[in-house]
């Protein structure tokens, strides 16, 4: 039901806003900036800082008649004796708000004066200087002289680590509680709170480890002073010394919009480097937030270990080579191989790279495959989400089903937005074999044993817990289904995807607005690969034998050492990569590729949203963009492909693939005004987040669903009493190629570990915290044993990408080391 509109006058300007709007927000809509510190447009107001004081006048109501008193044709307005806070006061009809009177101005000046009595003179050394709301509002509203004796300023601890990623400066804190409220309200993890009272009030964290939240770095954006700063960017540079480039985070399929801040530095030998990553506002993807992995795992881009020149192997000897020589050799082998070759692409590649790889494979008659452990993607192109689906707008009437996915670790911003949707009234249903963090907000939880994923979805009505859930799914106006790969390999996840798509079909939501299937992919652009027709292969070893293998942006041998033999039996191996990996060590030609920070392109997020990223840094060494390498190779092999302009490739994609129809770089760069206003002059309001001036991206069109394929039965391993089944799960901080170079995350990455239920640990005679020997597929590894009551019995949770190869549930043996 649309809210009733209320008219009022703010500083002489008339404004009409929905009932319930706060005065601060109403003023913002007509361009009047009422200064705030503790208020944040995404959180409930508290009225703690008293900076937004304004004079409020309301119509006088006659006590007898209950009607407003009319004087001279207009309602008589009576102003309150004291100033009121604009952030806690909702608008009312015929209200008059005056913010520019002497009284209001003096009130504001005095509040700033009070705040500054406890605030140290740290501006020269404070990281927030230059983007500090306190600095800006003091200049705008404060007094030019202070009446306070500087010797009386209180001294407190200045360099307190809240966890190892965020520093707290207790003297600078103005006790606005934005950080506490963000953690409590938005994240749902109250790991920060006040300690003591009055002038001695501090911020503390008592979680183990400290500030245990993957959204901790967002507090440094919304903190109005330099109290919370990141350890990564401590004394890095001044905000005005850095240049910005719009980009997209590539660590998970959410596709958060980021801004890369870069500077040319002496300590980096005169190279331009990324100093920090800041969120860029996109209310339909990540709003104004980022997770810590996306914020801090950028050091791979400047790592000296990156490949800078092409490498060529002759026999056992690997030498650096020129591009001409390396490409000639590779092209010659490609031509000789005729149609006996396979292109294996990783999900880290941009849309343009994938297009060229597919075009090369199709043009020369070879096979194109996606390197992934998660299948079912073709269904997301048929039953995917529609143009207007936005987690931020979901509420009552929407049902969200999350199956086999630990969103907190796999796609943190989806976890955050779905949790908020549930708080707004959306029905959240979680189907999982183990308890995950999102379950706290779920209306229905369906627990199954590993191996029964697809079956559980198909026969949801049969179980009691499932019945209520099935009801909620069927009766929802919109239904969004997210499926992941927790404990699932290629076949298992494909089977689950089919079951979920079938569910959407059965409840009549397939193809409807606001509904659809979303895959929680392991990589940023898996969706783009699926959209362009890439398919995974089940048996890579069989595919490699005697063929020419062209690998781009993936490390099959590093993930599974058993593939080394298969790759050695290949005819010729070409690898395009950023770093030396186990796969590049077996390659005949290694071509150094640019990271996404050095070139432009576009990614397709898991929600089927195509977003552009822009170059931030010059090319590392002699690296070239992936699409350019593929085009050069193709050209030498007799096939013409676009290799210079990513924009032209996007035009080709738009004309070739129906779902990309109508897309162009210009369209992707379109922006609209977004609410709340952030950046530039509005940093006090929304935080030091960057405004989005370089593109919001757009959704892909939905293809005709037709009839969705039926589900094939899949043989999955199930846990049993007699043996230990290792289940692959996702851990947010893993040993991924783009994560490991960030040394500050190493304490979070830790060593390879396995999680067991306490009873299971007893049964296999291993102790919590000790080192054990784990044997999987014949190879033994050292692991640390972790014990957790939430782990189901008879299984061992083994995170992927931690050095132990596991893609699908496998029987293991475990014994104390």
């Amino acid at each position, binding site marked *: 039901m649309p809210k009733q509109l209320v008219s009022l006058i703010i500083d002489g300007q008339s404004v009409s806003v929905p009932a319930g709007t706060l005065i601060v927000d109403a003023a913002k809509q007509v361009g009047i900036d009422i200064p705030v510190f503790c208020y944040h447009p995404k959180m409930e107001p508290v009225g703690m800082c008293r900076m937004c004081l304004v004079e409020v006048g309301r119509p006088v109501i006659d006590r007898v008649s209950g009607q407003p008193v009319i004087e001279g044709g207009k309602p008589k307005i009576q102003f309150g004796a004291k100033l009121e806070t604009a952030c806690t006061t909702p608008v009312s009809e015929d209200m008059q708000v005056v913010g520019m009177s002497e009284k209001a101005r003096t009130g504001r000046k005095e509040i700033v004066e009070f705040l500054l009595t406890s605030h140290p003179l740290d501006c*020269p*050394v404070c990281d927030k*200087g230059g983007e500090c709301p306190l600095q800006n509002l003091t200049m705008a509203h404060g007094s030019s002289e202070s009446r306070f004796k500087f010797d009386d300023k209180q*001294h407190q601890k200045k360099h307190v680590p809240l966890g190892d990623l965020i520093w707290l*400066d207790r003297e600078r804190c103005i006790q606005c509680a934005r950080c506490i409220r963000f953690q409590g309200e938005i994240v749902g993890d109250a790991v920060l709170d006040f300690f003591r009272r009055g002038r001695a009030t501090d911020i503390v964290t008592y979680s183990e480890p400290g500030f245990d939240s993957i959204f901790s770095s967002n507090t440094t954006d919304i903190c109005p002073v330099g109290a919370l700063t990141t350890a990564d960017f401590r004394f*890095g*540079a001044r905000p005005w010394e850095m240049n910005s480039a719009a980009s997209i985070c590539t660590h998970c399929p959410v596709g958060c919009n980021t801004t890369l801040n870069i500077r040319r530095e*002496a*300590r980096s030998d005169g190279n331009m480097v990324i100093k920090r990553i800041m969120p860029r506002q996109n209310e339909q993807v990540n709003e104004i937030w980022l997770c810590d992995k996306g914020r801090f795992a950028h050091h791979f881009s400047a790592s000296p270990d990156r490949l800078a020149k092409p490498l060529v192997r002759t026999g056992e000897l690997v030498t650096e080579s020129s591009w001409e020589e390396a490409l000639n050799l590779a092209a010659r082998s490609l031509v000789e191989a005729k149609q006996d070759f396979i292109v294996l692409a990783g999900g880290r590649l941009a849309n343009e790279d994938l297009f060229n790889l597919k075009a090369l494979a199709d043009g020369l008659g070879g096979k194109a495959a996606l390197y992934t452990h998660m299948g079912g993607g073709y269904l997301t192109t048929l039953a995917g989400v529609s143009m207007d689906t936005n987690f931020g707008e979901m509420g009552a009437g929407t049902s969200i089903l999350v199956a086999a996915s630990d969103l907190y670790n796999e796609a943190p911003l989806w976890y955050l937005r779905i949790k908020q949707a549930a708080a707004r009234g959306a029905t959240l249903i979680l189907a999982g074999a183990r308890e995950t963090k999102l379950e706290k907000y779920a209306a229905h939880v369906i627990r199954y044993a590993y191996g029964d994923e697809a079956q559980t979805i198909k026969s949801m009505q049969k179980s009691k817990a499932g019945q209520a859930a099935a009801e909620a799914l069927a009766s929802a106006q919109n239904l969004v289904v997210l499926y992941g790969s927790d404990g699932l390999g290629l076949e298992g996840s494909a089977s689950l995807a089919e079951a979920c798509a079938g569910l959407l079909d059965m409840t009549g939501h397939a193809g409807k607005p606001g509904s659809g299937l979303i895959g929680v992919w392991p990589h940023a652009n898996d969706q783009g690969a699926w959209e362009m027709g890439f398919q995974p292969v089940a048996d890579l070893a069989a595919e490699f034998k005697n063929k020419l293998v062209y690998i781009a942006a993936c490390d099959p041998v590093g993930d599974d050492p058993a593939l080394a033999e298969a790759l050695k039996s290949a005819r010729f191996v070409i690898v395009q990569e950023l770093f030396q990996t186990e796969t590049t060590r077996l390659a005949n030609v290694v071509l150094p590729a640019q990271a996404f920070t050095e070139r432009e392109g576009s990614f397709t997020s898991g929600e089927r949203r195509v977003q552009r990223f822009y170059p931030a840094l010059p090319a590392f060494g002699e690296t070239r963009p992936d699409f350019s390498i593929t085009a050069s190779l193709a050209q030498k092999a007799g096939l013409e492909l676009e290799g210079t302009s990513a924009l032209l490739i996007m035009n080709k994609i738009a004309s070739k693939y129906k779902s990309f129809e109508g897309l162009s770089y210009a369209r992707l760069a379109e922006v609209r005004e977004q609410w709340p206003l952030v950046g530039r002059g509005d940093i006090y309001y929304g935080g030091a987040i960057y405004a989005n001036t370089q593109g919001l991206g757009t959704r892909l069109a939905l293809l005709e669903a037709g009839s969705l394929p039926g589900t094939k039965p899949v043989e999955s391993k199930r846990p049993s009493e007699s043996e230990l089944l290792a289940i692959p799960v996702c851990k947010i901080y893993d040993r991924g190629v783009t994560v490991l170079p960030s040394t500050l995350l190493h304490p979070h990455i830790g060593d390879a570990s396995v999680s067991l239920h306490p009873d299971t640990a007893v049964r296999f005679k291993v102790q919590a915290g000790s080192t054990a020997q784990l044997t999987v597929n014949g190879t033994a590894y050292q692991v640390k044993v972790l014990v957790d009551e939430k782990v189901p019995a008879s299984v061992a949770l083994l995170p992927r990408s931690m050095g132990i190869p596991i893609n699908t549930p496998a029987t293991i043996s475990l014994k104390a080391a």
Partner: protein
Amino acid sequence: MRVFEPLIELARGLGTTFKIMLEKPVTVQYPEQKKPVKPRFRGRHVLKRYDNGLEKCIGCALCAAACPADAIFVESAENTDDVRFSPGDRYASTYEINMLRCIFCGFCEDACPTEAVVLGDNYELSFTNRRDAIYPKEMLIEPAPAGTLPTPQKVPPGLYTRSVPEMKDPQD
């Protein structure tokens, strides 16, 4: 009489010349004699130290921000008690001034919150290529006062806990 007029004019001119010749010249015999500079003369930059040998510069980059010619480049780093450059959290690990860009306006000196960078009296600067015109910190920092150690110093912990050192009002 008309034949004398040019002679009279000549004599007047020559008289002025001879008068001036006998006056004391204002020429300063540079480089043997150097005229002392005025008190607020703006010459080559100097990064000052405290009496205990620690550097005054806290790496805040306000001088770089104030410079109208973008001549100053600053990178900051953290002090520890084992390796201490300045009293406080922060010091300038890189400090470079491009003398070719510098217009010697003195805005950097005005902006500095700790009176670290001052424009001193030295005006005798020369370089033969552009690279040499970029003066690094080693060239700009004044030597440690007699009786103190050069930075970095190792100091006892707990002595320097303020992030910006205590300052007195400037004297001139």
